[in-house]
C-alpha cells in the first residue's frame, strides 16, 4: 500500500483537530500538508546544496593544507550566501548564436529532475513525501532528466567546449545508469519491494542487518553503486563533462549568473540524493539502532538526524575522493563501465538471487550467529 506523509500524520489526534479547522475538507488539507513539506524539503536541500559548495572548498583546503574560505562569517560559513548573492546580481549573458529556448530550458530541467527525486527520499519512517511502491524505480527514472539537461545545455550554447562536454555527459550518464540500476536491483531482490519504506524497514536492528552486510554480493554491490553514482553525478574522478583542463568548464561554459548557479546547485543536491539513496539502500537508512521503537512524533526527528548523519558521511567521502584521485580518460571511463562494473553488477544480481534461494533469505550474520529470520 502506498504511504504518504499525510497518511502518516493522520494517525495522530492533532490531525483530526486540524481537519476540523479545515472544515473536514481532506483534499484541501492534504494539499496544504504536501505543499508545506515540499517547501521545507526544497529549502532544506537548497541549503544543503549551498553548504555543499562551502564544504567542498573547506575540505579541499584541508587536504591541500590551505585555509579555504574564512572571511565571511565565522570560519567563512556564510560564504555560500555571498556566492548566491553574487550569482543573482551578475549579468545574464547569452551567446548571440545560442538556441534561446533550449538555453533557458536546460538549467531548469536539471533542477526539476533533481528536486523531483526528493519526493521519495526517505528522511525517516514517517517523513517521506510519498512512499510509492515504485519508489526507487521512480527515482532512477526521473533523475534521467538531468542527463537530458546536460546534453541540452551543451547543445544550446553553440560552443565547441559545451558541445563536447554535453555529449560526454549524456553518454556517461546513460552508460553508468546500467551498473547502478542492476546494483539497486540486487537490493530490491533482498527487500522484496521497490518502495523505500519496505527497503529501510527490512534493515531494522543491529548494523549486521544492513543490506551491505547481508551477503558478500550485496557488499560488492554497494561499491559498484557508489562508483556508478559518482559517474552519474559527474563527480571526480569521472568529471569529464566539465574537465577544466580540456573543456574550460564543459557543458556550462557559456552559462553565467544564476543559470550557472542552477547547474551547480543541481549537481550538489544530486550528490546528496545519491548518497541518501546509498544510505537508505545499503546502510540501514533512518532506522534507530537496536530496534528501539517509540511511535511518537519527536522520534521521527531523531530518525531524520540518523539519516542525515549517514548521508553526510558519504557526502564527505565523495568530496574526499574528488580531491584525491586524478581524472580518468574517456576510454578508461567507458571500459570501467562496460568491461568491469556492468559484469560485476550482473554477477552480484545473480549471486544475491542464488543466496536467497540457498540460504532461505537469511543474512550472513544470521547464518554465522544463528537467529531467526
Amino acid at each position: 500500500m502506498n504511504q504518504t506523509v499525510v497518511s502518516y500524520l493522520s494517525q495522530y489526534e492533532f490531525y483530526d483537530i486540524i481537519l476540523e479547522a479545515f472544515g473536514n475538507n481532506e483534499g484541501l488539507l492534504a494539499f496544504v500538508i504536501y505543499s508545506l513539506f515540499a517547501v521545507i524539503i526544497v529549502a532544506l536541500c537548497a541549503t544543503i546544496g549551498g553548504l555543499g559548495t562551502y564544504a567542498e572548498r573547506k575540505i579541499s583546503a584541508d587536504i591541500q593544507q590551505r585555509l579555504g574560505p574564512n572571511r565571511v562569517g565565522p570560519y567563512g560559513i556564510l560564504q555560500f550566501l555571498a556566492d548566491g548573492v553574487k550569482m543573482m546580481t551578475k549579468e545574464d549573458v547569452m551567446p548571440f548564436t545560442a538556441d534561446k529556448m533550449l538555453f533557458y530550458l536546460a538549467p531548469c530541467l536539471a533542477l526539476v529532475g533533481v528536486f523531483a527525486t526528493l519526493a521519495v527520499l526517505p528522511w525517516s519512517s514517517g517523513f517521506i513525501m510519498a512512499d510509492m511502491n515504485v519508489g526507487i524505480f521512480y527515482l532512477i527514472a526521473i533523475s534521467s532528466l538531468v542527463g537530458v539537461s546536460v546534453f541540452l545545455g551543451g547543445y544550446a550554447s553553440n560552443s565547441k567546449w559545451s558541445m563536447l562536454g554535453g555529449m560526454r555527459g549524456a553518454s556517461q550518464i546513460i552508460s553508468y545508469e546500467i551498473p547502478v540500476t542492476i546494483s539497486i536491483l540486487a537490493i530490491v531482490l533482498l527487500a522484496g519491494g521497490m518502495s523505500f519504506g519496505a527497503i529501510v524497514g527490512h534493515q531494522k536492528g543491529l548494523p549486521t542487518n544492513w543490506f551491505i552486510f547481508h551477503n558478500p554480493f550485496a557488499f560488492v554491490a554497494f561499491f559498484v553503486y557508489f562508483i556508478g553514482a559518482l559517474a552519474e553525478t559527474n563527480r571526480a574522478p569521472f568529471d569529464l563533462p566539465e574537465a577544466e583542463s580540456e573543456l574550460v568548464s564543459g557543458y556550462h561554459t557559456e552559462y553565467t549568473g544564476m543559470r550557472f548557479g542552477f547547474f551547480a546547485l543541481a549537481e550538489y543536491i544530486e550528490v546528496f540524493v545519491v548518497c541518501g539513496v546509498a544510505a537508505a539502500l545499503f546502510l540501514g537508512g533512518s532506522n534507530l539502532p537496536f530496534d528501539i521503537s517509540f511511535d511518537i512524533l519527536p522520534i521521527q526527528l531523531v530518525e531524520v538526524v540518523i539519516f542525515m548523519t549517514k548521508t553526510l558521511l558519504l557526502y564527505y567521502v565523495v568530496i574526499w575522493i574528488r580531491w584525491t584521485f586524478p581524472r580518468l580518460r574517456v576510454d578508461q571511463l567507458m571500459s570501467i563501465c562496460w568491461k568491469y562494473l556492468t559484469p560485476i553488477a550482473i554477477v552480484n544480481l545473480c549471486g544475491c538471487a542464488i543466496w536467497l534461494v540457498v540460504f532461505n533469505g537469511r543474512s550472513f550474520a544470521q547464518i554465522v550467529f544463528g537467529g531467526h529470520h
Partner: protein
Amino acid sequence: MFAQLLFAMSALLTVGGAIAVVVTKNIMHSCIFLLACLIGVAGLYATLGADFVAVTQIMVYVGGIVILMLFAVMLTGGKDFVSRAQNLLGLAPSMGNKWTFSIAILVSIVFLLTNISLIGNIVRSHAPKTFGNDYPSTVSQIGHLLVKDHVLAFELSSVLLLGALVGAAIIARPRKQ
C-alpha cells in the same frame, strides 16, 4: 480534486506537446516538445492508477529514447534541419502532397470514430473510479503476470532485444583491412 488537476495538467502537456512537435520548424525543439508530450502521457497513466507503467514510460522515453533521438539528430546535422518549406495551410515542415494529406485526414477521422465508439462503451458501462490517498499497487500484479502467465513472451522479447544489440555491435565494429 487532485486527480482532476493532475489529469488536466497531463492532458494539456500531452496535447500541447504533440501539437508543438508538428508545428515547430526546428527539429531539436521538436524533440524537446516530444519529451513534454511523453511526460504528459506518463501523467495520464498515473491518473489511471497505473504507477508502474507511468514510471516505465518516463524511464524508457525520457532516459532512453529522447536522448537517443537528440544524439541522432545532432550527429546528423542538428540545427541545419530547420525547414523553410510551406504548403497547404502554411504549416511547416510539411511532408507529402495533397494525396497523402487527404488520406491522412480520412484515416484520422476513421481512427477518431473508432476510438469514440470504443471509449463510449467503456464510459457507459463503468462508473468512474475515484482514488483516495491510497490506491492498490500494480507492481506485484505486473510481476506475477510477467514471470508466470506470460513468461514465454517476456523471454522472447528479451531475445529479440539481445539480437538487436548484437546486430548493432556487428554493424558498428571497425572492419579489419
